[in-house]
């Protein structure tokens, strides 16, 4: 309960002003394509040089929480996921916006972000010692199985055909191997200078999601205005809250998956949203509606990726190991003031530690209030005529992918992948499994190689990868996930063929 003592510190005028700036600025930065939370926080670090440690951390904490939520805005309105965390949000969120339900989608996303986010920070406050042990429990073999678990999700994610889903995943896994191999340093599949650094995940995300959409708008040709004007439905905040309460399962799965996966160093944030989305879909009685604008999809994805924020800081705050790129940047923000995370932080600088954590708590609320306030207005984006929209999205995509690491190569990769994805989509492939492959490939590979090196030096491959409670548990989950997909495919096929016979 120590954190309550430091609540006052958040509300001093300067601190509160910084919190507001961090939150609103974070939302805007998060909504900008190409700016992941990591980059947004890194951009703010120089400002903290001038501030007191506490103030600097308030700014960074607020910015971190709200950029994660802000990514949902561009995911819903423009179908450009701001960061890998927001991929799952595009699946249902953007469809809702296209149906004129953008306000509802945004409200649900902010509300579930806030609930998930507060849950995550609460875990950080109360369960840090337990969580720290859990975060360390994942060695290379476990991370490998976890990545494989992600791969099994690929086939069923956002695709009508399991084979094409898997094939999309394979393309993604292959694309991930392009560039210098991280461990050996060997060059793989570099057939253009732009690929030397591998395929940047943020640039790829922009290309794979935004460009197909731009081309589909071109494909519709010069359509009359009247055909396109879309009624953006009003949606009251209370209705959104009621709706949120109607889907406790999506909320629950989102929060738990998000906080558990977010905790694991090196994997966490990127796949939390997708895994939660997939799980919610599997458990939902209305699973056929997913991908067509089902609110559960948005709730689960956003609850998960904000719930991950708190736990993702556990390894940093307790063990001084940054578990995610964003945590690594925050570490820099602490070190610059001579504060070492770990026991030192909580023992000698409790004011800094708790004010930082509290600011993330209050930041969630502020972010939610501000987000709800602008949701109705922002949803009007769906009314922008598509000729204008195509030009805007293309411009944003080019600037966004360039700004990731000031590289023209990333822009080329973005456009090339995007054009390829448009045609693939027309033939039944989809972007989400491809991106999942792109994210999971390096995790699976690095941990497999590292694991096999350790295994060869110690007790051998079989005992290392196939024994131990956590390994066995993960393998069981993998098998269950595969069995479930096969079962669904068989059932679907029977269903489809029956339908065909009837027709």
């Amino acid at each position, binding site marked *: 309960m120590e954190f309550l003592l430091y609540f006052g510190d958040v509300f001093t005028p300067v601190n509160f002003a910084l919190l507001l700036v961090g939150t609103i600025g974070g939302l805007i930065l998060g909504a*900008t394509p190409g700016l992941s939370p990591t980059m947004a926080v890194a*951009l703010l670090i120089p400002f903290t040089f001038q501030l007191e440690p506490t103030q600097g951390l308030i700014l960074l904490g607020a910015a971190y929480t709200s950029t994660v939520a802000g990514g949902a805005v561009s995911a819903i309105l423009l179908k450009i996921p701001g960061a890998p965390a927001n991929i799952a949000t595009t699946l249902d969120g953007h469809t809702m916006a296209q149906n004129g339900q953008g306000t509802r989608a945004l409200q649900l996303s902010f509300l579930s972000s806030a609930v998930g986010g507060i849950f995550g920070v609460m875990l950080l406050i109360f369960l840090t010692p337990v969580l720290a042990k859990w975060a360390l429990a994942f060695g290379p073999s476990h991370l490998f199985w976890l990545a494989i678990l992600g791969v099994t999700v690929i086939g069923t994610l956002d*695709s*009508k055909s399991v*084979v*094409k889903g898997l*094939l999309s995943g*394979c*393309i993604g*896994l*292959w694309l991930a*191997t392009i560039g210098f191999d991280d461990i*050996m340093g*060997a060059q*793989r*599949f570099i057939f253009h200078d732009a690929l030397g650094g591998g395929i940047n995940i943020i640039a790829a995300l922009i290309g794979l999601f935004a460009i197909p959409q*731009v*081309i589909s*708008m*071109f*494909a*519709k*040709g*010069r*359509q*009359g*205005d009247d055909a396109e004007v879309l009624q953006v439905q009003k949606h009251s905040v209370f209705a959104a809250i009621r709706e949120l309460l109607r889907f406790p399962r999506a909320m629950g799965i989102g929060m738990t998956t998000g906080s558990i996966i977010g905790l694991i160093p090196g994997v966490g944030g990127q796949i939390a949203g997708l895994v939660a989305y997939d799980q919610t879909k599997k458990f939902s009685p209305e699973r056929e509606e997913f991908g067509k604008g089902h609110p559960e999809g948005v709730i689960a994805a956003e609850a998960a990726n904000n719930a991950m924020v708190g736990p993702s800081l556990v390894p940093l705050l307790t063990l001084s190991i940054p578990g995610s790129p964003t945590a690594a940047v925050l570490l820099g923000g602490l070190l610059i003031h001579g504060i070492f995370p770990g026991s030192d932080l909580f023992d000698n600088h409790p004011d800094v530690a708790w004010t930082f954590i509290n600011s993330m708590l209050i930041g969630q609320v502020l972010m939610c209030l501000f987000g709800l306030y602008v949701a109705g207005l922002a949803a009007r984006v769906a009314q922008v*005529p*598509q*000729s*204008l929209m*195509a*030009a*805007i999205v*293309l*411009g*944003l995509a*080019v*600037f966004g992918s*360039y*700004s990731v690491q*000031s590289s*023209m190569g990333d*822009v*080329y990769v*973005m*456009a090339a992948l995007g054009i390829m994805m448009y*045609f*693939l*989509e*027309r*033939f*039944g*492939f989809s972007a989400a499994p491809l991106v999942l492959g792109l994210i999971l*490939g390096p995790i*699976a*590979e690095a941990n*497999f*190689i590292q694991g096999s090196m350790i295994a060869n030096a110690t007790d051998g491959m079989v005992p290392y990868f196939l024994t131990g409670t956590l390994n066995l548990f993960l393998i069981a989950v993998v098998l269950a996930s595969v069995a479930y997909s096969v079962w669904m495919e068989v059932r679907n096929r029977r269903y*489809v063929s029956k339908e065909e016979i009837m027709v």
Partner: protein
Amino acid sequence: MSDLNLPRVQHVVASGCVLAVGAWVTYLSYTQQPAEAFLFPRLIATVFVVLAAWTFAKAIMGWTKVGAGVSPIAFMSMVPGVVVMLVYVFWAAKTLGFYTATAASFFILFSLYDPAPHNALKSWMKRVFATVCFTLVMYGLFALLLKVFTPREALF
């Protein structure tokens, strides 16, 4: 007749391309050195090529269930847009400078696909105005706020 078969032919072509890429990737992963760095690519490529072959076979047999293909009308209307996009991304952005290229391509694309009449002054004014606004917003966001130094070669 040709209408009926178009998606099927397209599916064969598309999955054929995927299969070709798969075969090529597989070939590369089994021949490139150092072999230990290509262990993982080999694994992926093998699965890749098997799945691609399966999809290709299905397309030839006409069993493909998902994906509507690209209709000739849609293809014709997207060609100009895609050409502008290619020129913008692969040539203009670097050679003319980001802001010039963005403004130009924005204006061309918007004019190409804007349903408003092409012979009314008012609609041209609207297009110019939108282009200027967009360029300014991009400049404000990326150059001023985020301090991204974009290529400014020939023009701004």
